[in-house]
């Protein structure tokens, strides 16, 4: 996607700045906690966080720094003394705290599930067909999910919402901000990217031969996928022909030709065929990875890689592709005969080869643990600065929003986290999260239960 398009979409969310406080009714047990007001009003006064340790991500660490948040943006970042604090600003002493950009989770199911085992609360993936590019996670995104406050309390301010695996093309991702009065305000970008899964899990071959249905093999999956893209190419040609014929008819003042019948599935594939949007190519093993890449190249798709957890033998090949990798989950078990840390060390191995990496929680309930995965990678050779970058600036770059997010720089959206220590340390407690400059109430359904039973 063009950066300008994203800017436009991000700024399209600007009405969010005029949010009104509104109570949200949550599903609560025992009626103990019935109403939870989590919304805040627009940032009215400027905020200056003073004295903290600023991890800018883009330009190093500033000890005893000052960061100013105004009208939803970061307006100044620097060392104390070098930054002019606006006269009317609310000055907050952040001495001893660590301040860093809001974290970005590059694959979640936030807003698509509430209780995993309860089918009625899940909108994760349509399994009726393997080719479902016309599914839009934005259509299912549940803004009032109790999972979202839980995630943002740990400093995650933005995330990709992706459908679950299971299909080759399960539907399109959204890019969200983890605060807002309604789904449209939180959905910064609809249909940002399209997952293309080629892990073997998409095969419908469970059970005996009598229970199988097409496609039950990788051959079947690849053929079906190829057919879908060929159909989309044909469809596109038909649309282009129609446009030409229509233009000719208008020019010749003749009756307009009949428009081709719309096909939503094929229509959804066109921006990806045109290379205007990103395909998220998921594979785990070296062989699946190479098959998936050759399929993507066949149709000149623009792609980033996902998982590649068992592709260690071909990391130089991965580097040669010059595309970013959403790596992991780092907790993926190694293969039977592999050393225990084969997957733990994958982020470092990719980094050493110059690959841009980002992390994802691949989760809904455990989005809050995203920084733990990044921290764990440092125990196996990833430099800590790079680990933080993989959940901030790198992610913003991969998703085309680096002009707005991912670092502490003047002009960017004021998504800022104040914590009592290193973001990669599991013991670190987040003290305050700012999203678009608003101090988010540091409460969730879980803090309310805690407080209720601490009385």
């Amino acid at each position, binding site marked *: 996607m063009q950066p300008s398009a994203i800017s436009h979409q991000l700024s399209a969310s600007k009405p969010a700045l005029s949010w009104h406080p509104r109570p949200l009714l949550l599903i609560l047990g025992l009626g103990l906690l019935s109403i939870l007001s989590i919304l805040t009003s627009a940032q009215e006064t400027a905020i200056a966080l003073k004295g903290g340790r600023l991890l800018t991500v883009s330009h190093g660490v500033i000890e005893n720094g000052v960061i100013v948040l105004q009208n939803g943006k970061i307006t100044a970042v620097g060392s104390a003394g070098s930054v002019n604090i606006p006269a009317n600003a609310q000055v907050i002493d952040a001495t001893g705290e660590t301040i860093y950009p809001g974290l970005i989770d590059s694959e979640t199911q936030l807003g698509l599930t509430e*209780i995993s085992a309860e089918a009625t609360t899940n909108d994760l993936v349509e399994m009726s067909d393997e080719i479902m590019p016309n599914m839009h996670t934005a259509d299912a995104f549940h803004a009032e999910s109790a999972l979202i406050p839980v995630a943002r309390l740990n400093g995650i301010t933005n995330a990709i919402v992706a459908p679950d695996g299971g299909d080759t093309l399960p539907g399109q991702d959204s890019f969200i901000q983890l605060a807002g009065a309604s789904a449209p305000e939180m959905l910064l970008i609809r249909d940002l990217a399209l997952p293309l899964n080629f892990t073997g899990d998409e095969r419908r071959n469970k059970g005996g031969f009598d229970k199988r249905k097409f496609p039950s093999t990788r051959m079947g999956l690849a053929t079906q996928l190829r057919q879908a893209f060929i159909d989309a190419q044909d469809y596109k040609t038909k649309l282009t022909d129609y446009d030409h014929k229509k233009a000719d008819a208008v020019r010749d003042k003749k009756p307009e030709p009949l428009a081709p019948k719309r096909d939503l599935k094929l229509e959804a594939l066109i921006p990806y065929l045109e290379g205007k949007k990103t395909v998220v190519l998921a594979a785990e093993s070296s062989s699946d990875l190479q098959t998936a890449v050759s399929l993507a190249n066949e149709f000149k798709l623009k792609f980033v890689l996902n998982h590649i957890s068992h592709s260690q033998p071909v990391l130089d090949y991965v580097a040669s592709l010059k595309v970013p990798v959403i790596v992991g989950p780092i*907790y993926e078990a190694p293969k039977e005969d592999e*050393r225990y840390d084969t997957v733990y060390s994958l982020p470092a191995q990719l980094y050493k080869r110059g690959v841009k990496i980002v992390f994802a929680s691949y989760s809904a309930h*455990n989005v809050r643990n995203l920084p733990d995965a990044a*921290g764990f990678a440092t125990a196996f050779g990833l430099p800590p600065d790079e680990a933080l970058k993989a959940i901030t600036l790198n992610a913003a770059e991969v998703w085309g929003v680096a002009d707005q997010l991912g670092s502490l720089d003047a002009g960017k959206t004021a998504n800022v986290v104040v914590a009592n220590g290193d973001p990669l340390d599991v013991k670190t407690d987040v003290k305050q999260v700012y999203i678009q400059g608003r101090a988010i109430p540091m409460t969730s359904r*879980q803090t309310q239960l805690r407080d209720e039973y601490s009385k």
Partner: protein
Amino acid sequence: MHQTALAKFEFLCVCLIIFITAGFSQNAHHDVVIKNATVMTVTHGNIKNGSIYIKDGKIAAVGESVNAPATATVVDAGGKYLTPGIVDCHSHIALDDDVNEATSPVTPQMMMKDAFDYQDKAIYRALAGGVTTSLLLHGSANMIGGQAVVIKHKYGDGRDALLFPDAPRSIKFASGENPKRVYGGRDQLPSTRMGNFEVQREALVQAQDYNREWDAYNAKVKRGDKDASPPKHDLKLDALSDVLNRKLMVQIHCYRADEMLTEMTMAKEFGYNLRAFHHALEAYKIADQLAANNVGIATFADWWGYKNEAWDAIPWNAVMAMRKGVRVAIKSDSEDYTRRLNQEAAKTIRYGGATEEEALKMITLNAAWIIGVDDRVGSIDVGKDADLVIWDGYPLSTTGVPEKVLIDGEVYFDRTRPGLGTTHYKEGE
């Protein structure tokens, strides 16, 4: 460094590592001293520049300096952290998916030991995460499941070497959603929580009858009645009889506060030894009652929302329960999480402010108590098994990982070794 020089250097390093490790293992049942370690004892604070003297696989001395024979192999820990081996008191690894005999809701005669696959790589992967002892439990499909097996992660040794010698016996009970889903899904009893508890009660009542039959028979024999005929031996009722006679500790899978209260009432009614609730995600709601009944909990650090009965889970559960006097363990219940229980324990520092020692206790001594082996493992105290972990980095963090793991004084895992890092297991065997 020059390429060949580097190669030589690497070769020397490997030789040195092998030498050190060999020193460890050859002296396994002799004397080893680990010196210059930050010893986290769990029971009596940290000792900077501490030493441990290991004799015949047991901790013979611990302190700032120890008296050991001059012949003892000395290993310099280089100031690194040294902790007791991690104890995972809720695991289902190394059972080749034979976790649930889900063909009847009451199967106390099942022995997990019969399914134990001592070659399962999951044992190795947990070992590499610092786990030295695990309780392998039956699953939660049945109200009354099977009998657990306690293992030491001596990966590469023979099957019997991995069985924790003379460990107390435990049996798994379960309640809540799982049994009712498994049997309800087949239109069988139980399909509700009413059914769940009735199935459990019915089984225990049958065992009481069985006990009475045997008591009557034994009394007859004692009186010298030569015509007395013994009741038929029934493995299922034998096992339940052991529950009633407190020869088996009961480990109950239970989520909701109300169900934990019901289970405690039932344990009192039948007089069995309810050792711990597993999962216990709502323990924070009834912590006083758990403490009053001396029932431990084996819980997750922050799992939640995966099922309805996990909806009220909060990450402060462990510390809130602990502050009320409950013995709290953090367990894995997972082939994945068992590899990094230290990180899970560290979360209790963040959520609720556990001290370093309290956090560590949740994956060592308290977990050992739940299994009933706290007199043998779980802390660095004289007389205990030398199950130890030397850490790269700080253990209660995302960045600390085990460098060496010792069991009974022998190194079983060494991160600096090439290949799998195992010392007893040879690849390809």
